[in-house]
């Protein structure tokens, strides 16, 4: 059974129209991440939540926001999507408990901007 669930799997939005991607986890992990992945590249970390603490990467555009209302859910909000924001967005979780931190990914949400 999927442990990190992303919805929707495929999203088409218009240029400039806000979009929200959701992620839920059944692992009770304290860290949740959002990554952006473009074609055949490594995932790029946008931000993460360590419990309720939000940590933004320095190069993440202001256009990207996130919310984590509770342990199980996390949302990625793109306020004004541009053509360059078309990508796969990956949610991931981990339980920080010493070395050998392992990250579990969802199946991803494909975003197309038209």
């Amino acid at each position: 059974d999927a442990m990190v669930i992303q919805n929707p799997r495929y999203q088409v939005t218009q240029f400039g129209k806000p979009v929200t991607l959701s992620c839920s986890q059944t692992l009770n992990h304290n860290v949740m991440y959002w990554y952006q992945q473009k074609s055949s590249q490594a995932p790029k970390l946008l931000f993460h939540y360590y419990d309720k603490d939000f940590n933004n990467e320095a190069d993440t555009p202001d256009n990207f926001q996130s919310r984590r209302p509770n342990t199980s859910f996390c949302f990625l909000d793109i306020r004004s999507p541009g053509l360059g924001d078309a990508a796969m967005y990956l949610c991931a979780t981990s339980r920080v408990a010493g070395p050998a931190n392992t990250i579990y990914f969802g199946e991803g949400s494909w975003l197309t901007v038209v």
Partner: protein
Amino acid sequence: TQLLEQSPQFLSIQEGENLTVYCNSSSVFSSLQWYRQEPGEGPVLLVTVVTGGEVKKLKRLTFQFGDARKDSSLHITAAQPGDTGLYLCAGDPPWGDSSYKLIFGSGTRLLVRP
């Protein structure tokens, strides 16, 4: 800044051949993970290596962590078309140094031709 260099970037081989993918860094990692990602899906964890010099086997896949915990390799024996995908290595920085933010290699795209 910790970096992971992955090589080769792209590999196209015939079914039945052997191959090795390398992941190298000048930095020490407390652990290192290997993921495989198929098109349109999220990365799936293959293995985590923690101890310097550790070797783990997963059927036809052999993973090795360098003695100094700065590098790792993935060897596939008798590759099959089902092995096709993007292989990502990801290092976990030493504990206490933002250790829950994995450092990803650039990926190796493997194509196994029937």
